[in-house]
């Protein structure tokens, strides 16, 4: 019995570690396609991010003479962190392979670790843009982490557990004020998701204009394989946040979704819905001025606080 459980966990671990990076570029491609359709453009194919990654992996890499080992190892650390995060989130209605080895605080700390190395790599090459991007990223991150934490806390409070798998299992049973708290927390989480993943209205993922860059400024010095890893890690992180959002805040499953493939299908539809929400926001809202960002980030934090108080009552 114990061996069977270990074998199943190992299979799930392998599946999730492979599946999340494999599907993340597709998720980015779907968002881009949705945005193109909403903006009345034809847009690139949904597999375009894969083509971009393939191109970058085969390109020559140039590394600045002024950069240290931090610049060289940062892409591997950031990418590895997203793989570990991938093993921490529950998929297909099953507990996460790393369930019990870390809770929501571990999740948030790992996200912060990736952001730290990303910012460090931006500073390391000594370029003006990298420093500017790192400074902006850290300012935004300091407020975003509070939004992420406080959107998770009401769910943890109501589920009486900080384990992501247990939280995902129990959110479907929330009723009354618990349900209202969950929906308010979802609002806070969605704002934090956009900020954490450098999306509109916090950042423009496709800009290289010096006045508006945040994430792109930090990875400006990268090229070739390391740039591919950075781009892939960013896609992984966005996909992971979408999975966590769906699993924790939109947990309902129809009665007919009883088997693993059907559960995966419904989860896929819900992730598609979240992709639509991101594409809709990015097509209808302009990028906010940098000094207006704290307002929105503090709103995310306040929504979390309101949800937490509602959960406590």
């Amino acid at each position, binding site marked *: 019995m114990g061996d069977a459980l270990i074998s199943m966990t190992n299979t799930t671990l392998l599946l999730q570690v492979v599946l999340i990076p494999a599907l993340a570029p597709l998720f980015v491609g779907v968002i881009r396609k949705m945005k193109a359709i909403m903006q009345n453009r034809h847009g690139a194919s949904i597999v375009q991010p894969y083509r971009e990654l393939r191109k970058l992996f085969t390109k020559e890499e140039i590394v600045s003479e002024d950069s240290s080992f931090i610049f060289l190892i940062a892409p591997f650390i950031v990418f590895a962190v997203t793989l570990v995060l991938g093993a921490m989130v529950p998929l297909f209605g099953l507990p996460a392979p790393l369930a019990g080895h870390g809770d929501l605080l571990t999740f948030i700390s790992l996200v912060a670790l990736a952001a730290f190395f990303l910012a460090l790599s931006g500073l390391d090459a000594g370029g003006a843009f990298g420093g500017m991007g790192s400074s902006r990223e850290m300012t935004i991150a300091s407020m975003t982490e509070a939004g992420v934490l406080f959107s998770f806390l009401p769910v943890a409070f109501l589920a009486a557990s900080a384990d992501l798998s247990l939280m995902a299992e129990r959110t479907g049973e929330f009723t009354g004020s618990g349900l209202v708290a969950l929906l308010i927390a979802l609002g806070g989480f969605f704002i934090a998701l956009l900020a954490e993943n450098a999306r509109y209205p916090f950042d423009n993922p496709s800009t290289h204009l010096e006045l508006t860059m945040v994430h792109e400024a930090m990875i400006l010095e990268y090229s070739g394989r390391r740039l591919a890893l950075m781009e892939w890690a960013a896609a992984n992180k966005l996909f992971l946040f979408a999975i966590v959002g769906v699993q924790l805040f939109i947990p309902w499953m129809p009665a007919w979704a009883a088997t693993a493939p059907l559960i995966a299908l419904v989860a896929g539809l819900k992730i598609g819905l979240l992709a639509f929400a991101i594409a809709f926001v990015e097509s209808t809202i302009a990028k906010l001025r940098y000094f207006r960002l704290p*307002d*929105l980030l*503090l709103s995310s934090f*306040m929504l979390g*606080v*309101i949800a937490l*108080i509602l959960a406590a*009552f």
Partner: protein
Amino acid sequence: MDTSLVAALLILDTAVFLAVVVMHLAKKHSALIALYAAQSIAVSGMLLLIAREEHSASTYAVAAAIFLAKGALVPWLLRRLLAKGNIPATSASYLSTPETLFGLLLVTLFVQTLLVPALADLVRSPGLAFLALSALFASLLLALTRKGALAQIVAILAIENSLVAFVMLLGLRTHALLEFGIVLDILVWAFVASAFVGMITRHFGSTDVTIMKQLSE
């Protein structure tokens, strides 16, 4: 009150409260007016449910009058004022969005922890009283924090709507004629206020109270 009526009233009362919460977040005057219309329709719906329970023809008539006056006529008047183009499309607030959310949190906590327990003997359902009172205090906060005159008019009308909802849920009803009179009062007040706002805009070129304050100095 039977449970199905309480459940239906709870939905409409939630709509009254949520309308005020969204009003706090809305910046456009047109959105504020639309939300006020929706809130008024929810209040008339609540009265309609009570009229059905009481089998009272006069209450049905008052519900219809509220629907017509506050759900249609007053929003039309305010929209007409906006369409003249003298009033800006958006209204500013003294508070930022997180500060507004914090204010709303304090208001609802105050109602939940102090007012509802104090009124426990008077109200038929604590949940309904909580929502109506929260809507009342949230509307008051809206009137205090908005700078533009039109937004303040909408906030005062929202206070009146919340007050009607709360009084209705307390079971404090008066003669139908008096209730008609109140609806007529609101209508006349809206006419006078819209004419007054029009005059202020023509004379001073703005309805923003911060700009008008500078004019007096």
